[in-house]
């Protein structure tokens, strides 16, 4: 079996390591980062596995430097990745804004922790806003993928590289300590590219062509306005073409759970228990948090009697759910900002909503 070539049939790995295997399979040969819990498995794996295949691992002096290493390597036309957690991603926001403005692709992994401030290292989905709304200046968007299994940590990382290149834009994987640290078997299916590897815009020295620039400053003739509309059309195109979601046991569901990542994974167990008791409950799981599955959320909210949003925060995706439908009267929320909700807790909530005895 060979992980590097993606020919292994089934392997047991941590989610964070599966991200690395997916990145390497997708052709990523450059990784830069700075230590922060709970994602250190990623730089540790890359520091060991990139050099033997001719890749480059470099530990930066800060996340500020990291994202600018990323910017430079991306501008060189190479696939490049970094990973961090909430506070480190905060420090990268400046660079992410520059990369969005300069139309540079890269994959950014956020194995988030609870905040604000130094916060805690326990599993949390406290970075939904930072990831989905984009924390940097100026107003930009990026695809945000939310894996809920080790399999998806692998496959969505490969997809993130393709989306980043397709749109010439950073793309983010948003995970947490559970999906990052848990081990489970997954199938490392081979990487099949969906985008051209050509990057004619890359800065490679101007041999045989006019000089070109990678930049976000457009001072002359109000070119900045045209540039902003161009970027906006790109974000609209993402909304048209990239919405991804999973419908889980939604057939005849009167109670619809809306959850992503680890919350969704835990919810599946609770749904199985409740279904055995005859409670018609299912789940819509956004896989892309941006673009958000607006139409699907609205359809579910119209069909179901109750929509239960489950998050490991105090209600962040909840706002996007409310923006997706006018049926606010049906929406309920179960949140746990600094820990994973247990299947028992979610099951209990489902029973309550179904009018069953606790």
């Amino acid at each position: 079996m060979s992980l590097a070539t993606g020919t292994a049939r089934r392997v047991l790995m941590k989610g964070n390591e599966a991200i690395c295997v997916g990145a390497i399979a997708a052709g990523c040969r450059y990784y830069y980062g700075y230590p922060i819990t709970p994602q250190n498995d990623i730089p540790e794996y890359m520091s060991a596995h990139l050099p033997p295949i001719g890749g480059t691992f470099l530990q930066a002096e800060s996340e500020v430097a990291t994202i600018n290493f990323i910017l430079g390597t991306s501008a060189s036309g190479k696939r490049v990745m970094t990973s961090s957690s909430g506070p480190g991603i905060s420090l990268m926001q400046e660079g992410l804004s520059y990369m969005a403005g300069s139309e540079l692709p890269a994959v950014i992994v956020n194995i988030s922790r609870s905040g604000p401030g130094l916060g805690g290292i326990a599993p949390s989905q406290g970075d939904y806003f930072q990831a989905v709304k984009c924390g940097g200046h100026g107003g930009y968007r990026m695809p945000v993928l939310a894996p809920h299994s080790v399999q998806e940590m692998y496959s969505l990382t490969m997809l993130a590289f393709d989306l980043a290149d397709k749109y010439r834009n950073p793309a983010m994987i948003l995970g947490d300590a559970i999906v990052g640290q848990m081990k489970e078997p997954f199938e490392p299916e081979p990487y099949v590219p969906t985008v051209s590897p050509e990057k004619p815009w890359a800065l490679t020295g101007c041999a045989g062509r006019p000089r070109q620039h990678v930049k976000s400053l457009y001072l002359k003739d109000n070119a900045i306005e045209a540039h902003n509309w161009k970027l906006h059309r790109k974000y609209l195109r993402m909304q048209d073409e990239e919405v991804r979601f999973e419908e889980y046991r939604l057939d005849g569901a009167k109670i619809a759970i809306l959850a992503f990542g680890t919350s969704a994974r835990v919810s599946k167990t609770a749904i199985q228990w409740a279904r055995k008791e005859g409670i018609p409950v299912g789940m819509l799981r956004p896989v892309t948090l941006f673009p958000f599955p607006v139409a699907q959320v609205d359809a579910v909210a119209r069909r179901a009697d109750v929509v239960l949003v489950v998050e490991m925060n105090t209600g962040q995706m909840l706002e996007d759910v409310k923006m997706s439908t006018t049926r606010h009267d049906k929406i309920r929320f179960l949140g746990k900002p600094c820990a994973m909700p247990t299947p028992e807790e979610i099951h209990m909530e489902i029973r309550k909503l179904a009018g069953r005895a606790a």
Partner: protein
Amino acid sequence: MTTEGKDRFTKQVFSRPKSLVDVKTHFCPGCHHGIAHRIVAETIDLYGLRENTIGVACVGCAVFLYDYIDVDVAEAPHGRAPAVATGVKRAQPDKFVFTYQGDGDLAAIGTSEVIHAANRGENITVIFVNNTTYGMTGGQMAPTTMLGQKTSTSPYGRDFRKDGYPIKMAELLAPLEGTAYSARVATSSPAQIRKAKEAVKTAFDMQLKEMGFSIVEFLSTCPTNWGMKPVDARKRVLGEMSEYFPLGVYKERKQADFL
């Protein structure tokens, strides 16, 4: 007049460097960015690097490098040019990579990035233009602003008790093991310009020989924000500025140093 003499007088001995774009300058009268640009372009031509170079522009007046130097250029966030250059150089070690940064950019917000790039021995070249002020934003106090110098945010003059002292980057970076070359030059007289060109040549050569990090600090002018005539600004560089920021070579690594 002999035929020989006629040839002598029609021979072209001075022309625009190939790597310098033929456009009108937007820089203020008396600003020395143009001189620094020309020296960089001449040195790119000297080593035949135009089609093999990636420049990194910073934030401030210096960003417009890409309007004047005919090479591929990436724009870095404020202060981050050495980090962006690191990313370019690691991905393309066979390319010549340089940054072009002002003193607000390199010596204030970008101090961390330049120190760590130097300390890693990052094989890049930094052209650092120090005019003791933030030019583009309207002449605010910089970390290089001289004691007593009045700026738009030090209207009573820079006071060391409040603002500390002008920072000497060429000296600060020289002792780092990864620094191969560190020099400070000026552009305020033909003799100084010749020395500046020699320093830039040596700095480029360090990178071409994979010796590590090289930096040339230019003492430059900002007549507009200094409130001076260009001629007086030029005199200030050769006077009080070069007294506090001494010109010279602070580090020049020989091959044997790290072998």
